[in-house]
């Protein structure tokens, strides 16, 4: 189970993901949420509430980042969880998901 909250301001879209981002819900997460977003803004991604993440979940995040960058916008992580950090450390992917200077709680 996961939750995906999206908050759209004039220039900034904030996406908050929480729960389990895994193969079991990957299709749903991507097709019903990530894919439907409007990518004309800068993005902030809050992963603080992510309790579990696996490779399928990480792939979706990577795709999200790429998509935003494709439009020439910025995309940064504003909140990190232990499980996501562990994964990124294990696979040396910290550079793939830059963390913002801002820390929104």
């Amino acid at each position, binding site marked *: 189970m996961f939750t995906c909250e999206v908050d759209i301001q004039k220039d900034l879209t904030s996406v908050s993901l929480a729960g389990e981002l*895994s*193969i079991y819900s*990957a299709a749903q997460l991507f097709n019903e949420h990530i*894919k439907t977003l409007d990518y004309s803004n800068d993005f902030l991604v809050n992963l603080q509430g992510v309790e579990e993440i*696996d*490779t399928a979940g990480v*792939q979706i995040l990577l795709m999200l980042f790429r998509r935003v960058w494709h439009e020439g916008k910025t995309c940064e992580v504003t909140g990190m969880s232990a499980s996501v950090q562990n994964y990124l450390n294990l*696979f*040396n992917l910290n550079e*793939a998901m830059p963390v913002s200077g801002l820390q929104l709680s």
Partner: protein
Amino acid sequence: MPSEAALEIFYAESDELLEAMDSALLRMEDGEYDSEILNEIFRSAHTIKGSAGIFGLDHIVEFTHVVENILDRARDDEIRIESELLNIIFKCRDHMSVLVHASSDEFAEDDAMQEAGRLLLESLKPWAQAAEPESSSDDPNSTPATQAGNWHISLRLTPECLRNGMDPNSFVSFLGSIGTVVYIETLMDALPEFDNFDPEVLYLAYEIALDADVDRDAIENAFAFVQEDSQIRILPPDSVVDEYVALIEALPESNERIGEILIRCGAISEQTLQQALATQLGEKVAHGKARQIGELLEDEKGVSNKVVQAAVDKQRSSEIKKPASTAPQLIRVDAERLDHLINLIGELVINRQRVDLLAAHTGNESLIEAVNSLGGFTELLRDAALNLRMVPIGSTFQRFKRIVRDTAQELGKNIQLVIEGAETELDRLMVEKLTDPLTHIVRNAMDHGIEPLEVRRENNKPEAGTLKLAAFHDAGNIVIEISDDGGGIVPEKIRAKAVEKGVIDEDTHLPEQDILQLVFHPGFSTAENVTNLSGRGVGMDVVKRNVEALQGHIEIHSVVGEGTTFRIRLPLTLAIIDGFHVSTGQTQFIVPQAAVIECTDLASHIDKNGRNCINLRGDMIPYVALREIFQLPDKEPDIEEKSKERTDNLLVVQVGEDRAGILVDHLHGEVQTVVKPMGPIFKPLKGVGGSSLLGNGDIAFILDITQLIETVITVEAHEL
């Protein structure tokens, strides 16, 4: 985080490996000792350890690792597995089974389990190697089999692996547990356009530098369960530059890209890479084609295979395939799906009867013929489906080899197990339910049946007691016999105990067979010492109940001083039977066809002396009328049609050596029907073993011939 599904596969495959290991150990005990069997046992432990590692089941890895070392030494001829060590290995195998079925959490909380493991590993010490080869770089004298340094591992898993429950996370974590991941690069080259992205497909690839002091096997092992199309390339430390060049060539990404990654991994230096690529390129230009990869690898050390997935293939084929070269191809099927299929076929069979009937009514020739043909196929379909449920009883019997061995040791008796008819097949569901009753009877026979050594010697019996498990088909049943050549059951002792327990009165007189049957009475036991194994009086009655729950019967035959035989008779399947439809009055019955030997009429054979038996070509056979047994109402005299027909039809049936005649009003022909068991409320109803739905919607009672014959013979005995 591997999926539930993957974990299930791990359990199932580990169980199989453990059974194979058990079987091999038993063969070794019987005298088989060669490199093949040692390899077999080693590989079982090795594979379980490796897969347990992937799933993070450290408690299994730790224990099995030590056992594996011992087996490895035996494989290398450094030690020999004699009976003392063999005994310990048996126990280790059992403990491995316990560990496999315990989760990491359960293990952490179970002190007894941990202690048991510790003790076993302690007992292995005399045979264990002094230096453990799996420690990392702080051991300067690593054994030659391992290589210390930076291994390079290139992971290209199949896109489907996420769907199949394998996450690269598991592999990388595992690698981290046997060494240090010095560098890892996640390649995202294959990530598609946003709109083409399939969230359940793996697009990532990995290049890993692993600092570890291990042998190649330890790394390959991690990928034993991975898909066949995955490409995993492993380069040991100190691989020659040419090998890296070969890797660069083999990988799909551009040479420069891979080269850069290898530099970052620390595998080779930039300079070396440039030189090698230039040479390669130079050769291409010079000779018009590049040197084959194979040639490049001619003069290396440490790389025994080509730089391809051969390592993985070899791993899979040698470890997961069973040793028998003629093993049939097996697939795993969910038992529920199988049962569902068989249920549907059962319904099909019932429907077909109905169609048969209706077609007959129409009198339409072509229709009747077509329906007949349909019937033929339905029968074949039914048989094929039932065959799916049938398994040879051999695998159940096999398990007893271990039980007999261990129990004999415990009792200090020498007992040989003989198995006959292992190929006899019976319904899968029954096999599972038989294990407990059989175990109890076997233990009982070993504990009380077979006499202690001195007693046997005194009676000039062979020192080794014999326990025989036999199975065979008879009259549509499967018969399972457990016999021993022990002291037999002494009827007087049984009788005395029964009186003592108030089961029967002092002055009740029973024929011998009935006295023996008292053994199945609840709360009954004649064992002087209630041992761990049997004799608590809760065993035999449960055995009988279990057997009867399977629509079966159990009897005892015994000769004092010579031995005892328990005979269990079960229907071949609980699902569908071929039967003979008969009726008496308005009540329909079905007689299992396999039990019917003959169909005749009463008038021609009736005994002149008025006894209830018939003279069948010289043999006197008792008979009884269904009308009497089930107290069915008398025929009504004014149903004209029926009264003109002959109503003294006699079916001669046989079970084992007993024959009897069953008198019915009318015969209706052959049917195949789905057996619906009677509910527990009908248990006292002797003679009926189930019910069935006929084509016309009527309910027919399926006769339990064995019970019926018993009734007939008892009635006869009382009348004589």
